[in-house]
């Protein structure tokens, strides 16, 4: 089994079975490429303009940040409907602290993130220790925190924020190479990231092959990595020819790496998947399911607060309506990314790609001038199609 000859001999007939098993992983990558290509053509290339790509990241940053937490919530077998309201509430809190009370920006940021964790703890407490269904708890939270943001802001919009706060969302990393245009920092970051991803994938594969548990055909492995690396370098080139790396993209990328690590390489992440896969078996294996469920909600509250800050910084004003309906975008992104409603299944990368699919569709359709009415219909159909595709594959396998 461990000799290369045997592996090579085996890989031929297994490509097909491998594909059916991993249809989802490739399917979403394929879907992303198709959607990009489609909008690139119908918008006459506007989609891929440097300014638009930069905008894409700025517009979707908060959805992606929240999708990281939502993925863990859904993997653990729960749902969080309140994140949109938390975004609004935290934005309002930041505005009141900074604009009305003149609290320093850095203090406000930490206070807001702490407030988000408290909100998560409040909801997690009921879900984890009282076994109240998360749908109910967070539906209540959706109303409670929307109401509280209205109360905080007295129903008014509060702003603008000082420029140091706006940097959270609209700032760019300065070009350390001093070239200016194209921005060499952005390009270098893209190339380094691509190299790192390929290196890690190659190392992981080598280890799996040594244990004889690698099932991805070499050609697929190669193709997948070339595409990922090429996309990264391409995007960083586009960013470099506009204003460089947005701050929020950097934090997003760092967060994505951290959460991928947590979900795939820590005992904590493993236990969250086990809880979602079979909570009773997990509990009987000595896993403290209540504490883990609690932490997952605290984490979601923290990320929702961060997203709330980023969103407020981007709009430069806090309004009582901020974040309305965000929960749906976030949840849709996670499900498009391949997570399962029944828990135990889903990947961080999938959720991020799912968020990009939603974001590119929003962006592309807006450029095309499609009305908000049709946009919603189309987004709904795409979400449904993604999940139907999932279920179809699962039944076939």
């Amino acid at each position, binding site marked *: 089994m461990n000799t290369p000859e045997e592996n090579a001999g085996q890989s031929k007939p297994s490509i097909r079975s491998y594909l059916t098993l991993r249809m989802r992983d490739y399917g979403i990558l394929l879907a992303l490429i198709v959607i990009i290509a489609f909008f690139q053509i119908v918008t006459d290339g506007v989609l891929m303009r440097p300014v638009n790509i930069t905008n894409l990241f700025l517009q979707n940053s908060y959805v992606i940040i929240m999708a990281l937490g939502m993925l863990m919530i859904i993997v653990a077998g729960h749902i969080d409907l309140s994140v949109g309201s938390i975004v609004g509430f935290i934005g309002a809190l930041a505005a009141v602290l900074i604009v009305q009370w003149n609290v320093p920006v850095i203090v406000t940021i930490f206070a807001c993130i702490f407030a988000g964790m408290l909100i998560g703890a409040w909801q997690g407490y009921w879900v984890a220790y009282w076994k109240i269904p998360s749908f109910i708890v967070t539906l209540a939270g959706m109303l409670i925190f929307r109401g509280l943001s209205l109360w905080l802001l007295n129903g008014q919009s509060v702003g603008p924020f000082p420029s140091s706060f706006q940097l959270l969302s609209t700032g760019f990393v300065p070009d350390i190479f001093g070239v200016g245009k194209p921005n060499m920092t952005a390009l270098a970051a893209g190339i380094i990231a691509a190299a790192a991803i390929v290196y890690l994938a190659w190392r992981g594969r080598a*280890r799996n092959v040594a244990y*004889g*548990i690698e099932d991805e055909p070499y050609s697929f492995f190669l193709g997948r990595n070339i595409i990922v690396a090429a996309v990264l370098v391409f995007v960083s080139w586009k960013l470099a020819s506009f204003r460089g790396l947005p701050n929020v993209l950097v934090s997003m990328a760092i967060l994505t790496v951290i959460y991928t690590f947590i979900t795939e*390489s820590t005992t*904590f992440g493993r236990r969250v998947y086990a809880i979602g896969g*079979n909570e*009773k*078996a997990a*509990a009987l294996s*000595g896993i403290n399911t209540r504490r883990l469920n609690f932490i997952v909600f605290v984490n979601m509250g923290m990320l929702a607060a961060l997203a709330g800050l980023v969103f407020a910084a981007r709009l430069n004003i806090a309004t009582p309506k901020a974040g309305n309906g965000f929960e749906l975008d976030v949840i849709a992104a996670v499900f498009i990314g391949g997570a399962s409603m029944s828990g135990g299944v889903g990947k961080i990368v999938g959720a991020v790609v799912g968020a990009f699919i939603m974001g590119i569709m929003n962006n592309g359709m807006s450029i095309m001038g499609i009305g908000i009415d049709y946009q919603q219909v189309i987004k709904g159909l795409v979400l449904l199609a993604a999940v139907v595709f999932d279920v179809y594959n699962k039944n076939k396998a």
Partner: protein
Amino acid sequence: MTTLLEMKKITKTFPGVKALSDVDLSVEEGEIHALVGENGAGKSTLMKVLSGVYPHGSYEGEIHYAGELATFGGISDSEKKGIIIIHQELALVPQLSIAENIFLGNEVARSGVISWPDTYQKTEKLLRKVGLKDPPATLVEKIGVGKQQLVEIAKALSKDVRLLILDEPTAALSESDSAKLLSLLLELKQQGITSILISHKLNEVEQVADSITVIRDGSSVADIDCRKEEVSEARIIQAMVGRAMENRYPDRERNIGQELMSVKDWTVWHPEQTDRKVIKSVQFNVRAGEIVGIAGLMGSGRTELAMSIFGQSYGRNISGEVWLGGQKVDVSTVPKAIFAGLAYVTEDRKALGLVLDEPITKNVTLANLPGVSKYGVLNSAEETKTSEYYRKAMNIRTPTVAQRVVNLSGGNQQKVVLSKWLFTQPDVLILDEPTRGIDVGAKFEIYSLMNQLAAEGRGVVMISSEMPELLGMCDRIYVMNEGALVGELDAAEASQERIMSFIVRK
């Protein structure tokens, strides 16, 4: 007396298993006919054939009912003829009232509009017949299991029952409720209703049955007419268990050491029915290198005992002490129980033992993730190495450890569960029905593994419904019945008859 039901040479096969072979059953009009046999002997299958759950054509043999050949295509066909079956798990909707439950699917209605006065009136009449005094509007969840059983019977009466089949009706009932139910059966008999009673409790059978059919391994092995001959429990027991023992158990050298675990005065209350004691002051011990069996019927409290010891995973108001290696240990949560050196292999490996959609690797390490990680970061090379080790050691048949466990056979799944617990390095393993649903070859492997564990000086507790397996494997056997340990036998003096007599003795 006329014969109401005559089942002739009934044979029913499932893929790979012959559940019934040439079973004969003859029930006379107006009698109470008992059907007895071990778990899995085929009693329930036979009743499913009779009631049409397995429709005509899916079995061989003939059923003659009320003078004609019966060809039921489903339950509704047999119900129309007055054959009503009451299953062990009651088919009542807890959130509906007694009246609503009785007429569920059979509502007293005109063009779809329910007439509540008529419903309540009829319900009251039926409740009087079964001796239930609760108002018809009472929700079923508010009354106890005993009364729920009566509601089921009232429901059967509402359908003009002629042949009433009760599957283990007293299994979940207290003694006084059981007595009430049995006297109701006798009353119904006066009214001309024929019953088939499936029961493990031979004292009950003796008390009410007019005739008895014993089923063993899918065949009817004895017909006893209680009206003509004196029936002794011993005779029934012998018929129930009288099968030849083959040498299906690996030999082992017994090397039994000091006491390893002892459980003292263990008492557990039911998690929902707060006035019901499930485990009653149980004491037992396990020595190093010893395999101790716990025999008993399903529902006797064996699993509840094991799960309540393993981190209080079952029950409430648990009291008693657990001693391991001469020290009193805290087993109040699962992590603490694992830390103390306990492992519990569940009887329901799919629902409670495995994360089915995950690969072997992740299942094997689940109970001991610190063993493959540092500072909370998993070492996946170490993890793969560990599961590879167990794949070879346990002979898990799979191409790679990346295989998802849902794709494994029952025997291999069980080996994954065992691997998971061995990786926690336990001192005492409690194995709950470790060979249920796995084939003979895998069984032998699991027995060999148990012997090996004992040889390493661990203690093994084996819970099983299969008495031959207990007799073949254990050094000592405790017999459990209705939440209490009612007997303790050394392997040398144990026999199926002796175990059974402990169980059926009141």
